[in-house]
C-alpha cells in the first residue's frame, strides 16, 4: 500500500484545543500505517483553514485526507469542497467528529484524548478503503403533471404555466373546478362573487402551456425527480392511454364529504329534507331553496361536526360555511327561523369573528349541543339534542342541513400506491414535516397541495399550490442538470442470486428485477442510499457506496483495539 494520508486536527479555537491534548493525538497517530503528515490548525473551516488544507493536499500530494474536527453534519460538505478544488476526490476524505463526541462530551481530558485517538485511528483505517465516487449529472424535464383539476390544481397550473412550464392537468371528472364549482357563493370577504373562480378556470383553459386532460386518471408513474414517466388513462375517448414525460408532480386530489349515512342518528337518507352541505350549495346555486313538497322552508336547523367524532379531527371550514348558509337563507327567505347547532366553533381567520357576530345580531340562534337524534314528526323534522347544560331539548324544523367532515377523495390510497407516497392515520396524504416541510413528500419532485393533505379553506389551498409551484420552479430549472445521490447502493452481479428480498425493503422502488439476467438492479437516480437493502441481502451482493461492510468493519475493529 502506498497511501499518502494527511491527518489534520482542528483546534476549533479553544473548543477542541482546551479539552483534548492535540499534540499527544498527533504523536500517536503520525505512526499509523499510511499516514504521511499529521498536523494541527487553528480553525480549519475558516477561509485561512480551507486554503491551508487545499495547499497541503497539493504540496504533500495526499491520496487521502482525514480531518479531525466537528460533526460531519456540520462541515463534511465544507471540506469535501476543499478536496474538490485541490483536485482530490471528495470521497477520499473522512471527517472525524472529535468536538461533539469527545471534547464536548467527555469531561476528563485524558479520556477525551484517548477517545479522540481511537476515532481518528478508525478514520485512518477506514479512509484507505474509500473509493473515489463521481457526481453524476442527468438531464431533467421541466414539465409538470398536476393531478386534480380543483382550485388547487388550477392555481398550480396557472403559476407554472405563467413561467412557461408545460403543464398536464389531469382531472377525473368531465369538468374543471372541483368542489368549489358546486358552491353557490364564496364568503363575502373572499369576494363572494364566484366569477373569480370561473375566471381562473377560463385562464387555464386558454393557456396554451396547459394541456387539460379531463375524464382522465393517472394509471402508473415511474421514475424520479426530473425524469418521471406517467401513464394517463382517458375514460372518454374510448379509454385510450397516453404516456407523458414530466419532471415533477403535484397531487391536488382534494377531498370528499363524509357520508352522513354512517351516522344514522342524523336521519340522512331516511328523513325527507335532511341535506348535506354540498346538496344545499347546489340547491341554493340553482336559486330554488325548496322542500320536497315544493314549499320553501320556514325553519332550518344547521348541524355542525357531523362525523367529527368518527373521524377524530375538525374539518375547519364547516362552521364558516354553515354561517354562510344561515345568512344566505335569511337573505333569500326573509323571516325564516335558522338555528345553528355546534359543539365547538372554529373561526380561525381574522375576518371570521365579525362575520359570526353579525350573524348573531341577525337573529340566527347558535345552540351548543350534542347527542343529536333526528326523527320525522308530522311532516316536520324533530331535532332532539342535549344542550350545553346537559338538559335534553328538541325543536321541530322543515329542513336540516348537515355539515359533514371532509375526508380523503376517492382512490387517494390507489394514487398513494402508484406514487409510492405515505398516508397518515386519517387517510390523507402525509407531508414530510407538518411544520417545516408541509407540502413535500418523501419522494423528491412529488408535492401535495390543498385538501389532499387535509381539510383546508380556499385561501390555504391556493397558498399551498403556489408554494408547490415555487418549489418546482426553484428545484427543476430548464437546462439545469440534476445530481442524484452519489452514496447509493450497487449490486455485484456475480453475487446476486435474484431472491428479490431487496425489492421488498426498498421504499423508493429504486430496485427492479432483471428477468433476463435473473438479478436485481439498482436505479442509482432513484436510490437515496439508506442501505436497507444492504442489511437485507443474505448473499452480500449489495454494497452501499461509502458505507461498505469492510469500511464499517474497519471501524468496528479499531473501536475494539
Amino acid at each position: 500500500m502506498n497511501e499518502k494520508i494527511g491527518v489534520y486536527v482542528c483546534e476549533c479555537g479553544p473548543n477542541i484545543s482546551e479539552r483534548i491534548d492535540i499534540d499527544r493525538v498527533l504523536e500517536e497517530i503520525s505512526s499509523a500505517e499510511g499516514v504521511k503528515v499529521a498536523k494541527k490548525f487553528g480553525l480549519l473551516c475558516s477561509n485561512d483553514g480551507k486554503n491551508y488544507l487545499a495547499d497541503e493536499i497539493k504540496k504533500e500530494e495526499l491520496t487521502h485526507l482525514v480531518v479531525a474536527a466537528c460533526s460531519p453534519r456540520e462541515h463534511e460538505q465544507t471540506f469535501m469542497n476543499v478536496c474538490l478544488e485541490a483536485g482530490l476526490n471528495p470521497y477520499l476524505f473522512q471527517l472525524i467528529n472529535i468536538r461533539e463526541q469527545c471534547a464536548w462530551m467527555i469531561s476528563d481530558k485524558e479520556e477525551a484524548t484517548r477517545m479522540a485517538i481511537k476515532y481518528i485511528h478508525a478514520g485512518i483505517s477506514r479512509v484507505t478503503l474509500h473509493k473515489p465516487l463521481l457526481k453524476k449529472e442527468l438531464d431533467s424535464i421541466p414539465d409538470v403533471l398536476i393531478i386534480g383539476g380543483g382550485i388547487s390544481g388550477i392555481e398550480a397550473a396557472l403559476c407554472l404555466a405563467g413561467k412557461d412550464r408545460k403543464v398536464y392537468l389531469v382531472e377525473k371528472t368531465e369538468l374543471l373546478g372541483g368542489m368549489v364549482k358546486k358552491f353557490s357563493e364564496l364568503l363575502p370577504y373572499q369576494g363572494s362573487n364566484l366569477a373569480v373562480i370561473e375566471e381562473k378556470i377560463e385562464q387555464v383553459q386558454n393557456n396554451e402551456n396547459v394541456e387539460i386532460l379531463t375524464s382522465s386518471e393517472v394509471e402508473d408513474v415511474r421514475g424520479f425527480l426530473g425524469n418521471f414517466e406517467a401513464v394517463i388513462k382517458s375514460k372518454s375517448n374510448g379509454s385510450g392511454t397516453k404516456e407523458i414525460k414530466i419532471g415533477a408532480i403535484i397531487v391536488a386530489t382534494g377531498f370528499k364529504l363524509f357520508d352522513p349515512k354512517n351516522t344514522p342518528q342524523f336521519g340522512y337518507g331516511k328523513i325527507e329534507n335532511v341535506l348535506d352541505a354540498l346538496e344545499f350549495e347546489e340547491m341554493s346555486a340553482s336559486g330554488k331553496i325548496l322542500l320536497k313538497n315544493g314549499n320553501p322552508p320556514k325553519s332550518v336547523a344547521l348541524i355542525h361536526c357531523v362525523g367529527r367524532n368518527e373521524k377524530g379531527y375538525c374539518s375547519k371550514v364547516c362552521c364558516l360555511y354553515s354561517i354562510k348558509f344561515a345568512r344566505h337563507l335569511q337573505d333569500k327567505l326573509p323571516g325564516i327561523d335558522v338555528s345553528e347547532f355546534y359543539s365547538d366553533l372554529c373561526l380561525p381567520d381574522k375576518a371570521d369573528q365579525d362575520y359570526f357576530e353579525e350573524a348573531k345580531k341577525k337573529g340566527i340562534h347558535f345552540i351548543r349541543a350534542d347527542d343529536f337524534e333526528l326523527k320525522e314528526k308530522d311532516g316536520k323534522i324533530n331535532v332532539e339534542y342535549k344542550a350545553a347544560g346537559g338538559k335534553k331539548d328538541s325543536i321541530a324544523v322543515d329542513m336540516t342541513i348537515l355539515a359533514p367532515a371532509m375526508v380523503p377523495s376517492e382512490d387517494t390510497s390507489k394514487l398513494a400506491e402508484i406514487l409510492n407516497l405515505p398516508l397518515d392515520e386519517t387517510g390523507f396524504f402525509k407531508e414530510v414535516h407538518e411544520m417545516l416541510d408541509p407540502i413535500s413528500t418523501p419522494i423528491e419532485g412529488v408535492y401535495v397541495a390543498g385538501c389532499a393533505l387535509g381539510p383546508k379553506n380556499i385561501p390555504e389551498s391556493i397558498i399551498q399550490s403556489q408554494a408547490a409551484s415555487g418549489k418546482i420552479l426553484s428545484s427543476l430549472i430548464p437546462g439545469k442538470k440534476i445530481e442524484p445521490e452519489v452514496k447509493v447502493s450497487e449490486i455485484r452481479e456475480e453475487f446476486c442470486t435474484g431472491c428479490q428480498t431487496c425489492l421488498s425493503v426498498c421504499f423508493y422502488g429504486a430496485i427492479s428485477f432483471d428477468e433476463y439476467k435473473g438479478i436485481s438492479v439498482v436505479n442509482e437516480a432513484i436510490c437515496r442510499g439508506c442501505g436497507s437493502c444492504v442489511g437485507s441481502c443474505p448473499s452480500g451482493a449489495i454494497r452501499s457506496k461509502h458505507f461498505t461492510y469492510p469500511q464499517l468493519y474497519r471501524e468496528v475493529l479499531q473501536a475494539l483495539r
Partner: protein
Amino acid sequence: MSNVLKIKKGVEQGANELLKFLLESEKVKGIFTLRKMNENGAVSYSLITHPKELQNAVPLFPLMPVNAGKILSGFTLKKAINEPIAAVLRSCELRAFIELIKRTQGSLENFLLISSTCGGVYPLKSLTDGTYKEQVSQYWESAKNAEISSDIRPTCAACEYFIPQQADMTIAIVGKNDLQQECSIFLNTKKGEEFTIGAPGNIVSEDIDTKETAKLREKRQEQKKKLFDELEKNGSGIKALVKTFAACLSCHGCSKACPICYCTLCDFDSKTHEYLPSSHEIELEQKGGIRLPPGTIFFHIGRMIHMVVSCVNCGMCSDVCPVNIPVSTIFSKVGDSLQKLFDYLPGKDIEEPVPFGTYKEEEFTEIGE
C-alpha cells in the same frame, strides 16, 4: 373431510400404481420421485418419463439423499415447466420448495404435488453402513401404529409437521392400520381430484387428521422437547457453542445441503469475510491464540441469522456433517422460537411474505422506547 382414493394394494405398491396410472394415462409428462439406483439400497431422485422405469420407483422409501425442494428449485430456476409433472416429496421438502419460490428460486406452476404423512427417514449413515436394511423392516410397522420408528433421524423423530401443507394429494401412512392391504390417497385439491379421474380404486370420504395422527404429533412434540433439552448438556452461551462446534471443519457442507441456503456464493465464503494477516496478528496479540480457519461460530450464527426463520427442519445439514454436529437440532430450536415470534410457519402459505421482506408498524412497539 376430503375425498380419498383407495387402491386395494399395499401402500407402497399402491403409490406406484398411482404413479403408473398418471404416467401411462399421459396426465403427466413425467414423474419426479425417488428411484432405486443399486442393490445396496442407494436411492436418488429421478425424473421418470417412461413407465418401464417406474419399476425402480420407490416414492415412499424412508431415505432423503437430498432435499427435493432444492432439486425442484434448480429444475425450475430458469423458467416454469410448461407440461404437468408429478412430484413426490415429503412435507419438509415441499415446505422448502415453497420457501424457495417465495424468493423467486423456482416455480410451482404445472407441478402435481404428491406427498405423504411422513414417518420420517433414516440417516444417510444407515445407508452407507447398511444398517437401514434391518431397520426398514419395522419402519412400516411403527408408521402404521403411529409410533416414532426407532433409528430415524432425530430431527424426524421430533418433527410435528408430518402432515404436508399445500400438496394436491397426500398418501396416508401414519396410523393407517390397513397399510398392507390398501393405499389411501387423500385428494386435497381440485387438481388432485382431476388428475385421478379414471384412476384404479374407489373414492371414499375421510379426514386426514385422526386420533392416530394426533397421537404421533404428541409423541413427536415430546421428543422435540427432549431433543432441545439435550442441547443444554453443553451448558449455554459462547462456551456451549464452542463445545458444540469444536469439531467443525468449516466445510460449510451444512449450508450447501440446506435447501433454504440458496445463495450462489455464500457470503461467508466470499472475500468479504477474509482476514488480513494484520487483523490475525492483532487478535493474536489480544488473545495469545487464534483458531484457524477463523470465524467458525460467526459462520454458523451468521447463517442462522440469514435463514433460520425459513428453516423447515429437514435435517440435511446434520446428515451431511462429516463430524456429527447436531446442526439441525440447534437450528430447529432457534427456528422454532423465532418462527413463533414472527408468527410465521415456513412453507405453509406461498402468499405469506418472508419475515424480513416485511414488517408491521404496530408490532414490537415496546422496543426502542
